């Protein structure tokens, strides 16, 4: 069932490095998580990919609900954990007719640390630089099957492999606007004769406060208009040591969203539209991706 392997797999990166504090919606920021404080983030992703250049007319839908927690170990060190629940389904035309293959379950848990190595706090702005690094653990099922047999690896909830990720996050924040950038790599390893291609990602986010126009007393809630861009480039997958020519590629998204920020919670939503989508070979192109989420601030008892 090679057709299933053709799916552009960057979806696995979707939750690998992206929970955080206020700031960008689709990627990590380096704004602080206070010590003895936690930020819990729940998200919902919908990914649709139907632009199939092959006669298979593949139609991919991914629903994912990653729950992330960020804990401030010290004022500069934050620890992150992400537990995703995912459903992936693909409909495609085969010699026996139109079929659908689907998996649901716990995905791979990601844990990483972020340390602020440089911070300049001014009264009207803050600038920080924070590298981050961690691992993705093979907690998700990578060998599930349906009535047609074992489901192709990119459709499995888990990758089966221990993978490493690392990068750098840089925010500049004022009360009126915020600019965030991050970049990093994810190094994937082999499991059961299959290895996902390594990934490089770079993101940019601009958030502009559209309400309130003037700040009042106390701590007013903010409404931000958000524009983001995401670039993901992924190498080809390897199956039994052979490179899959129809996997990997480069995609660049432009995202438009809104973010409502209060002292204790954030509600946000964003739509990611591919501006550049160049999958290798006969890879499937994304139509769009929608993300909605909530974040809560929590004080820890220790």
């Amino acid at each position, binding site marked *: 069932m090679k057709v299933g392997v053709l799916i552009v797999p960057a979806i696995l990166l979707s939750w690998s490095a992206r929970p955080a504090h206020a700031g960008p919606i689709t990627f990590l920021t380096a704004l602080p998580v*206070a010590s*003895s*404080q936690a930020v819990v983030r729940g998200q919902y992703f919908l990914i649709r990919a139907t632009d199939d250049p092959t006669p298979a007319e593949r139609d991919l839908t991914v629903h994912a609900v990653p729950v992330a927690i960020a804990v401030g170990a010290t004022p500069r060190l934050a620890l992150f954990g992400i537990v995703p629940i995912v459903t992936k389904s693909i409909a495609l035309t085969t010699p026996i007719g139109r079929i659908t293959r689907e998996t649901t379950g716990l995905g791979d848990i990601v844990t990483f640390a972020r340390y602020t190595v440089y911070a300049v706090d*001014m009264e009207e702005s803050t600038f920080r630089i924070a590298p981050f690094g961690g691992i993705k653990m093979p907690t998700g099922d990578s060998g599930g099957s349906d009535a047609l047999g074992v489901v192709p690896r990119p459709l499995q909830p888990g990758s089966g492999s221990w993978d490493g990720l690392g990068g750098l996050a840089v925010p500049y924040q004022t009360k009126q606007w*915020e600019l965030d950038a991050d970049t990093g790599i994810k190094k994937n390893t082999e499991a059961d004769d299959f290895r996902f291609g390594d990934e490089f990602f770079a993101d940019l986010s601009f958030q502009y406060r559209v309400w309130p126009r003037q700040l009042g007393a106390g701590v007013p809630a903010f409404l931000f208009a958000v524009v983001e861009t995401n670039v993901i480039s992924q190498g080809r997958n390897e199956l039994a040591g052979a490179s899959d020519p129809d996997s990997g590629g480069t995609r660049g998204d432009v995202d438009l969203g809104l973010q409502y920020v209060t002292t204790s919670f954030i509600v946000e939503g964003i739509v990611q539209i591919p501006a550049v989508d160049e999958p290798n070979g006969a890879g499937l192109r994304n139509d769009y991706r929608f993300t909605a989420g909530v974040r809560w601030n929590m004080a820890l008892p220790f």
Partner: protein
Amino acid sequence: MQTNAHRGRQPLHRLVIGVVVVMALGQVASTFSAAAQAPAGDRNQAVVTVRGMQCPFCAYGIKKHLAKLTGATRADVELAKNQAIVTFTPGAKVTDAQIQQAVRNAGFTAGAIEWRAGTPDEAR
């Protein structure tokens, strides 16, 4: 000649001494005046300049850490003014260093701290 010159400088010496005495008396008066306006026991509210605090979500940690200080009865944030206002029970033993550390624990930088008299309801 020397005697005349010496005599000529005497008024200048008197003037310098007079200015010094007046300044010293002014300083003493100022000290007593400030003490009268805000006796140590009444200055139970710290207005802390917080650098780096730029959004509502960031204010959460600052309020929580300041509210945990010994004797603190409430902590409020004035985001537009870059200030946190902490009210303490009268006679609470808290130092500027402890307040600065609380702001650091929240991930930000404390600036000037001004003590003033305040009531628990004042910042509400």
